[in-house]
């Protein structure tokens, strides 16, 4: 039988009950949120279950919402089922003061570098990661550039005039 979003939602709520929240369907893909302590358990369940079989991690990234106090960083996992061709999006929220999330590298090898990239850009600390250091930026960088408070341009450059780019000398649109 083919896997529908309702069936997945039902299986998840049967197993995890109240922990699965904010379930919605956008553009045909099911989204749901789980608390950050359960992220591995949910992914393991989705991996092992014979009918669900979400055994491919398509993407792992994070989004910074500075307005949601206490839950600023959202780590987003995109999972995929090859047999039934179904996509799934799982979100885990964590605060910016204590951004620790369990690593998914034991389950999916592809999560290794994706988590390093997320750490590099957002500062999410993946507990249990074998080699969590910066991957794309220079190693000496001391801030996490993709967070909303940091500007795009390098502030120390002298040959570009921000006035001419319509930025009026202060950074912002």
């Amino acid at each position, binding site marked *: 039988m083919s896997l529908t979003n309702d069936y997945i939602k039902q299986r998840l709520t049967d197993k995890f009950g109240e922990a699965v929240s904010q379930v919605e369907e956008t553009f045909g893909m099911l989204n749901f949120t789980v608390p950050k302590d359960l992220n591995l358990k949910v992914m393991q369940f989705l991996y092992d279950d014979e009918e669900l079989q979400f055994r491919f991690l398509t993407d792992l990234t994070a989004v910074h919402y500075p307005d949601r106090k206490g839950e600023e960083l959202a780590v987003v996992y995109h999972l995929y089922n090859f047999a039934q061709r179904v996509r799934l999006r799982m979100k885990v929220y964590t605060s910016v003061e204590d951004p620790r999330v369990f690593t998914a590298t034991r389950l999916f090898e592809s999560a290794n570098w994706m988590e390093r990239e997320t750490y590099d850009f957002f500062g999410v600390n993946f507990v249990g990661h074998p080699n969590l250091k910066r991957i794309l*930026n*220079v190693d000496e960088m001391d801030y996490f*550039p993709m967070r909303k408070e940091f*500007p795009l*341009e*390098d502030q120390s*450059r002298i*040959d*570009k005039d921000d006035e001419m*780019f319509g930025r009026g000398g202060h950074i912002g649109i």
Partner: protein
Amino acid sequence: MARPVQYNTKVKTVEIPEGYSGEGFFATSFDKAIGLARKNSIWPLPFATSCCGIEFMATMASTYDLARFGAERMAFTPRQCDLLMVMGTISKKMGPVLRQVYLQMAEPRWVIAVGACASSGGVFDTYSVLQGIDQIIPVDVYVPGCPPRPEAIIDGFMRIQDLIGQESLRRRHSEKYKELLNSYGIQ
């Protein structure tokens, strides 16, 4: 039946520099003769990082053959090359690597910055991209474009050839050159 032998009579030769010629001899200055030899036998080092590198591959291939200009052998080691062709975006992580490669080159050496990213950072005015390689090494010719057409790269190459042909032999030992290198922190 063997193919008949063909002689290519339309060979374009390089013009001789100015000098005084007579019966069986030709007198010119060292500068001009050495300049002529150097400019028609440049060994470039293609430092291709991104999209401009693919246009360089197209320039090297048979349609826009760069080997016609004497750049037959691409030296991939800085110790043996004359011309450093930096093609593509140089990020801050790559900057020290580029500087190391430049330092390993022996005099006389020239640098051509191919593409907008190498000349000035290009489209990428970001925290991680070096805004032009002339922040770290002295550059002789800039070729704008994103990516520049092969004809533009060849034009840049020909400007380098002009520079090389007219360069004085004393330039590398002159005060002005030493000052230039010092301003980059290179001894």
